[in-house]
């Protein structure tokens, strides 16, 4: 892998799951990493893990749905590390619900972190990214482009992330700032574990995936690191699925082919 030595990265939702794996991988490649999230505990433990491996990291408590906290966070990172090269918008929030059962409040919650928060981060980070010809990687989801009942609000929010990714790629290309997204399928994080109560549920989920297994957070992190790195210097506006082939397949085919 290419070196990200002395690059500065921000990862939102960096305390757990895909965000934590991404913070660790970016640090392994030499980046200084600001790890953001709402709870200090998980952030501090990731920062210690990075520091124990000889890396540099910073824990920042930030609710990205609050634009003043976002502006403060970006300023703090730039003043601490001297600039900004990589923004990973991973923080999200899921309020499940049927379309005819969504309260207005739960509907808006799906958008506050995932859509508003991502916009606030991109907006505040852009001048710094432009200075360093940096790059953005948004973490979308397979639900943003495929039918997913019971989570219409979340799916719509992830669809919005896809649009924001494409449009930032266009608006920022002339400044040399690339913007891409990874599109995870089923990844073994805490929220995924929560919807897989037993082995049978997991086996069913796996049967829908061409690679017949649920992904590991580090597999998404590796794709994020690639897109953020100079190795992807001619790649922008791309939505890269990290889903074991799930997006290529209609669920009906999978089981019958075994």
């Amino acid at each position: 892998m290419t070196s990200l030595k002395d690059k500065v990265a921000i990862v939102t939702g960096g305390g757990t799951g895909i965000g934590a794996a991404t913070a660790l991988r970016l640090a392994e490649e030499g980046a200084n990493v600001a790890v953001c999230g709402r709870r200090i505990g998980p952030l501090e433990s990731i920062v210690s893990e990075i520091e124990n491996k000889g890396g540099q990291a910073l824990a920042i408590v930030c609710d990205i749905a609050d634009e003043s906290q976002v502006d403060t966070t970006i300023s703090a990172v730039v003043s601490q590390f001297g600039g900004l090269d990589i923004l990973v918008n991973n923080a999200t929030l899921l309020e499940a619900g049927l379309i005819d059962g969504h309260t207005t409040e739960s509907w808006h919650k799906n958008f506050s972190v995932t859509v508003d928060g991502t916009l606030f981060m991109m907006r505040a980070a852009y001048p710094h990214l432009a200075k360093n010809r940096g790059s953005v990687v948004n973490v979308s989801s397979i639900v943003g482009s495929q039918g997913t009942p019971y989570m219409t609000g979340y799916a719509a929010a992830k669809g919005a992330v896809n649009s924001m990714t494409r449009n930032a790629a266009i608006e920022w290309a002339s400044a040399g700032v690339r913007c891409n997204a990874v599109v995870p399928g089923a990844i073994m994080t805490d929220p995924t574990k929560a919807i897989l109560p037993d082995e049978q549920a997991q086996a069913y989920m796996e049967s829908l995936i061409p690679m017949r297994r649920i992904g590991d957070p580090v597999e998404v992190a590796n794709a994020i690191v690639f897109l953020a790195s100079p190795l992807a210097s001619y790649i922008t506006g791309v939505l890269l699925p990290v889903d074991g082939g799930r997006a290529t397949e209609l669920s009906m085919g999978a089981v019958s082919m075994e």
Partner: protein
Amino acid sequence: MGRLNNKIAIVTGAGQGIGRAIAQALASEGATVVAVDLNLSAVEETVQVFPQSSMALACNVGNSAEVASVVSKVEAEYGRVDVLVNNAGIGQAPNDGSDLYMQRLGARAEAFAKGETPTVFADHTIDMQDDGWLAVMNVNINGTFYFCRDVLKVMSRLNQTGSIINISSTSALNGEGGAHYCASKAAILGLTKALAQEVGARGIRVNAVAPGPTDTPAMASISEEWRQQIAQAVLLNRLASPREIASAVAFLASDESSYITGHTLCANGGMHLL
């Protein structure tokens, strides 16, 4: 040494341009590279600079017997195949109507320059003969199929995992190019997705890369003005270097992309968005 240590990789069309850059990128990541091309002396030159063992073989990928022979030679020498990159491809062939198409483009440009409305359309396909169409289809899609099939035979028999990367083109997505070329490159995407589903359960991944305009020797002959026009069609406002396509291929070849299959990765400076 790299992400592809101890891997055996076959790269077709490795005598120049993107294929040569791919062979070099995989070798620099530690892979043992088998460089394949119609032009043997060109691939011999490609592998000269590799630090580790490598092999240069002549092969017309559109000939299934030649493909079978290459794959069996590689298995005999190295015992397996881990990575296959189907890069060999052509954009035109004799009797495909290109010459008449270029004449029409010239006439249209002349009319525009004089401020007149052109009297001819930019027709190409009406002059495409059967053999011109088939020649492009044969190299681009049949060649990719032959290599996928024969390498999968080896991977399947040895019950091994692996990664196959098929080089498509942004033309497959936006229809910019000859009908034979666009159709063949789009067919590669269907092949890629079908194979990804068929062999994904045993850990063999199959992906495609869709390059945009790339600064290869084939592009060197065009005028500076045309080059500028092409660059303007790309968000990043420049052509890719072959190395930038190669680094996307190396990512898909490596375990860094271990949960990615069936995808078409655009390495085209954002051209697919416009």
